[in-house]
């Protein structure tokens, strides 16, 4: 279980999160919606532990542990996964090499035996096949020359391989056309399980047609201002964020 309590955070000296409360149980999929500048991406970076995102108050308890005290790589090893809005390119490093390094680093942290080349390739083939991805993508350098859709699929593949307990999907729909969106959503849905929680961050309701959440929260001006079921998303789609004091047309 992940409990976020009264979370306050600063970026470049500016208060962005101003008291976020959120509880996510195993297996649940929560969506965070909100206008631009509400603090959605800041929340994802704070949870993943990015440098420069300073927590000024509040706590995040992750399966009984203090998440905020951990280094980013420890959080990852404990099962926190962030699917990036803008996946980063790493020239010269093959996707396979990157994934193998990542999975063995997490396994080592958990006290599990590292996978050898054969075991890893077997695992990778299974996951790639399940996501309908090509082997060719694995040989290419991480995200280099990938289309928007390929990058997001690659994030999904990494998630499938690393098998997180808590996945944060930051604006996974951005930059995707409807066909690419469907493919990525299918991949994500295949990874839903009773043990795995997800936090889906999005500006538009569209993504939630394909990844149907259990709960929807509205984040505005650094706080969760409304929570509800999946219907809340539809309501937002109709009325915009006006009801929360935000006029996006302005």
């Amino acid at each position, binding site marked *: 279980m992940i409990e976020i309590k009264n979370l306050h955070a600063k970026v470049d000296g500016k208060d962005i999160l101003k008291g976020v409360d959120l509880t996510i149980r195993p297996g649940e999929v929560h969506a965070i919606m909100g206008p631009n500048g509400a603090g959605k991406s800041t929340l994802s970076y704070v949870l*993943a*532990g*990015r*440098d*420069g995102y300073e927590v000024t108050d509040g706590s995040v308890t992750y399966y009984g542990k203090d998440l905020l005290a951990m*280094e*980013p*790589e420890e*959080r*990852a*090893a404990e099962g926190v*996964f*962030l699917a*990036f809005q803008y*996946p*980063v*390119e*790493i*020239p*010269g*490093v093959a996707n396979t*090499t*990157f994934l193998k*390094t*990542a*999975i063995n*680093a*997490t396994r080592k*942290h958990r006290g599990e035996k590292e996978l050898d080349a054969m075991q890893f390739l077997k695992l990778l083939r299974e996951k790639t096949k399940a996501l309908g991805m090509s082997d060719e993508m694995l040989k290419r*350098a991480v995200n280099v020359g990938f289309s928007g859709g390929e990058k997001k699929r690659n994030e999904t593949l*990494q998630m499938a391989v*690393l098998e997180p307990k808590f996945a944060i999907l930051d604006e996974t729909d951005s930059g995707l056309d409807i066909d690419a969106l469907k493919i990525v959503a299918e991949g994500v849905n295949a990874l839903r399980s009773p043990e795995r929680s997800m936090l889906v961050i999005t500006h538009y309701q569209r993504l939630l047609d394909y990844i149907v959440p259990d709960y929807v929260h509205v984040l505005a001006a650094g706080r969760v201002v409304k929570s509800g079921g999946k219907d809340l998303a539809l309501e937002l789609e109709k009325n915009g964020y006006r009801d929360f004091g935000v006029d996006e047309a302005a």
Partner: protein
Amino acid sequence: MAAQPETIDQVRAVTEQKYKYGFTTDIESDVAPKGLNEDIVRFISAKKNEPEWLLEWRLRAYRVWLTMEEPEWAAVQFPPIDYQDAHYYAAPKQKVRPKSLDEVDPELLATYAKLGIPLREQEILAGVEGSENKSPAIAVDAVFDSVSVATTFKAKLEEMGIIFCAISEAVQKHPDLVKKYLGSVVPYTDNYYATLNCAVFTDGSFVYIPKGVRCPMELSTYFRINQANTGQFERTLIIADEGSYVSYLEGCTAPQRDENQLHAAVVELVALDNATIKYSTVQNWYPGNAEGVGGIYNFVTKRGACRGKNSKISWTQVETGSAITWKYPSCILQGDNSVGEFYSVAITNNRQQADTGTKMIHIGKNTRSTIVSKGISAGKAQQTYRGLVKILPKAEGARNHTQCDSLLIGDQCGAHTVPYIESRNRSARIEHEATTAKISDDQLFYCRQRGISEEDAVSLIVNGFCKEVLKELPMEFAVEAQKLVGISLEGSVG
């Protein structure tokens, strides 16, 4: 992307990593008195029981050296070297030269074992005779201070007519070959450090590959500086006769000491018609500590002559050590259609300085050269790529492609690129590409979010950056080099 102050602090904390090969071996050495004069030159020559012509050659070099001045054009800084304050000869004390490995001092063998060199002949042989064993064997010539300790695999190579031995042994056993080629690529008047080497060189490797022979294994020399205040002046000469092929690897380490030690080596390569020489170096000399105290001055002259038509010389270097590196492995492309290649990874961290690059001299028709240089600078290190591409009037159809990439880690290091291009033939095609990049915080965070520690992330990113060069290394050493890249940059994040 600007570096986060925290990451820079972390760099500082970790960059002072321990030099893994900083142990010394307790062996009584036979050392010449400190200082340099004609008597020392004669002493060395006498110790080696050299013929008169070689002594004369050394003395000519010494006299020329006296008239020369240290080069100052390289972008490196160091206090003046007192050439009288060093020993020019140090040999592990032994009554007679060992006839087989069993007679070699066990302390020495233990040292090499610590360095991870597969020296024990029987072990290597065991690995070879099993026909299902795919990994090619490596023949090792180990140079400990100034003396070649043991050459493995000699008998097997001899069957094919390949000569692989200490150069002092070659002087005794193959004087005609040595006399014909020694100094033919790097003359004794060449430059300050090379000329000094001619006067006082003590040992090194000699390789001769006969006509049409493809050397079946990697040949390797492992240099190690043990004695304090010793200069190491090894001399390597490799001759690939018509239609032959050889791949040679040189690896270097030195113990950790507060004083600076001079290493002024000369390597000469000669490739005749249709011959290929591949020369790879993994240089991991002690770089000094984080404040820049101690470390090796690596002032080396390496040059290959593609004398025959269709010949090829390929230099691959991974330079991670030394306080100062001054080194330009070069190719003289004399034979028509000959090919020169230079693949380089140079890593400088803390206070290390490197001024390194290559020279490609196109003389023959349709000669081609490729230069790929990857420089990585971290800490307060300064690094310069310095390269010359020269096309002479008769080099009809000559081509060169140069690619120089620099990667900066942190905000206190520097990378400089100084390409010189001289073309005197209108048909020549010369291309030069250069890039400079930094490891971004985005890349580091992305890796860490996937569970990869900061250090491993740097290693991964840098290895990706160097991939084009590392893939040129012989398989057995590629893995070692990859690890070395990681170790040399431990914690240097920005």
